[in-house]
């Protein structure tokens, strides 16, 4: 396959970026999208040019590192997969492919297609934890969990924090991520203690980081490689309303958000 790539190149966060066009003339349909970029980079290195920087790690769809906007769709045209699981057979010979980084204020561009997603870590720190007694390991199954709840908690827990939801959302909202992380814990008995404080804190931190807000459009769920449902967002909203009625105030400090 011969492809034309329009790739976003940006030296660092301070320098403005631009699209550059590259020819990829030796692409096998069996390559993954990232392998295709590896081959293009090899050519660039041989030519003495700067290779294209992109995030990647496990390359099997579970780490959440790969993060590319491919032809205007987060993680490319196929549903329920990450960029690394996308294969070149999904494209046609002679195609032009536009590759861009996630774009959002709380995801500053580090270089080319690599963005800093530490804002997600700070949202987790704000409430994505539970209190447990330390000491010897408890016996398994001492706390009964209804099977439907366990399933829903697992569905939410599949979120790999890649940030595709933010990238796809026209508002740049992180609600699907926040909601998945909150629902993962709130469906389980162990997550009840901090349930309402968690909802308030994580939403507050989301706002402080500079993410947008949810307009219930559903672009997030449509591109989510783990198909997290928007039901989780309704659940988080419900928890936040209950928390407000209970008089729970956020305990996160504005200073914890990265000054931008």
């Amino acid at each position, binding site marked *: 396959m011969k492809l034309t790539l*329009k790739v*976003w190149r940006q030296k660092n966060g301070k320098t403005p970026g631009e*699209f550059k066009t590259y020819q990829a003339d030796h692409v096998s349909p069996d390559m993954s999208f990232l392998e295709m970029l590896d081959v293009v980079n090899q050519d660039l290195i041989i030519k003495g040019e700067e290779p294209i920087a992109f995030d990647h790690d496990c390359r099997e769809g579970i780490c959440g590192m790969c993060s590319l*906007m491919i*032809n*205007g*769709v987060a993680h490319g045209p196929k549903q329920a997969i990450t960029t690394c699981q996308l294969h070149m057979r999904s494209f046609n010979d002679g195609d032009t492919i*536009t590759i*861009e*980084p996630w*774009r*959002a*204020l*709380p*995801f*500053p*561009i580090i270089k080319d297609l690599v963005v800093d997603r530490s804002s997600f870590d700070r949202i987790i720190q704000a409430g994505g934890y539970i209190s447990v007694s330390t000491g010897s390991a408890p016996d398994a199954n001492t706390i009964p969990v209804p099977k439907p709840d366990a399933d829903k908690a697992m569905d939410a827990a599949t979120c790999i924090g890649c940030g595709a939801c933010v990238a*796809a959302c*026209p*508002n*740049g*909202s992180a*609600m699907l991520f926040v909601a998945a992380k909150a629902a993962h814990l709130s469906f389980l008995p162990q997550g009840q203690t901090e349930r309402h404080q968690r909802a*308030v804190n994580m*939403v*507050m931190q*989301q*706002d402080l980081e*500079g*993410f*947008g*807000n*949810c*307009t*219930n*459009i*559903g*672009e997030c769920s*449509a*591109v989510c490689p783990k198909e997290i*449902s*928007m*039901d989780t*967002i*309704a*659940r*988080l*909203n*419900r*928890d*936040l*309303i209950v*928390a*407000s*009625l*209970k*008089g*729970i*105030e*956020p305990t996160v400090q504005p200073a914890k958000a990265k000054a931008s």
Partner: protein
Amino acid sequence: MTGVLTLYRTSVGKKVIMAVTGFILVGFVVFHMYGNLKMYQGPEVFNAYAAGLRELGYPVFGHEHLLWVARVVLLASVVLHIWSATMLTMQSQKNTFANAVGGLKRYGEKKRQTGYAAYTMRFGGVLIFLFIIYHLLHLTFGVVGYGPGEFRHPHGGEFQVYSNVVIGFQNPLISGFYIFTMIFLGLHLYHGVWSMFQTLGLNSAVYTRLLRGLAILVALAVVIGNISFPIAVMAGIVGPAA
């Protein structure tokens, strides 16, 4: 008590304000459409409806009491609805314009995955707001869209709303504007009605189809009902009182 301020502080809280005020406004547009259907029953019934609105809740409520309560609640709802929408839009745009390709374009290429209605909420909202102002100046106050002496103001408890509507909608430009806005009101309702349940946390996989259906029902009822009025006048179905 200060915990309730969490609603004001967080984005989700502002959305809750938008959903609750939206719920009130949806109730109003449905009631407004239903009430106006009386114009098909002729001038007497329709004019009596206008007079009857002043006696809403009688004998529990006095003359125009409940009407003024409704007016104040509706006005407050409109203000809060627009305020929360503006705050939320500003929060989102600050974010999405940050790493933009240049100008206001966030991505060099962006493909839409989901429906159309949600993307016209902001445009539709502004359009509906401008429409409300025009609508009040037109059919309530009679200061625009009428020739001298054509608009008949209420006089001594007598309402001539039937003749006002018929004369008002005989102008195809004005009727066209009404019909155009109603299409966007329909889209606004289609997304908004489902959305308010989602925002209030009342949606889940069990109910989402039901709520989408409800949204379609409300949107269609309001749009078809409201569009029928100017069309009926222009087609002569609702004509000048004999």
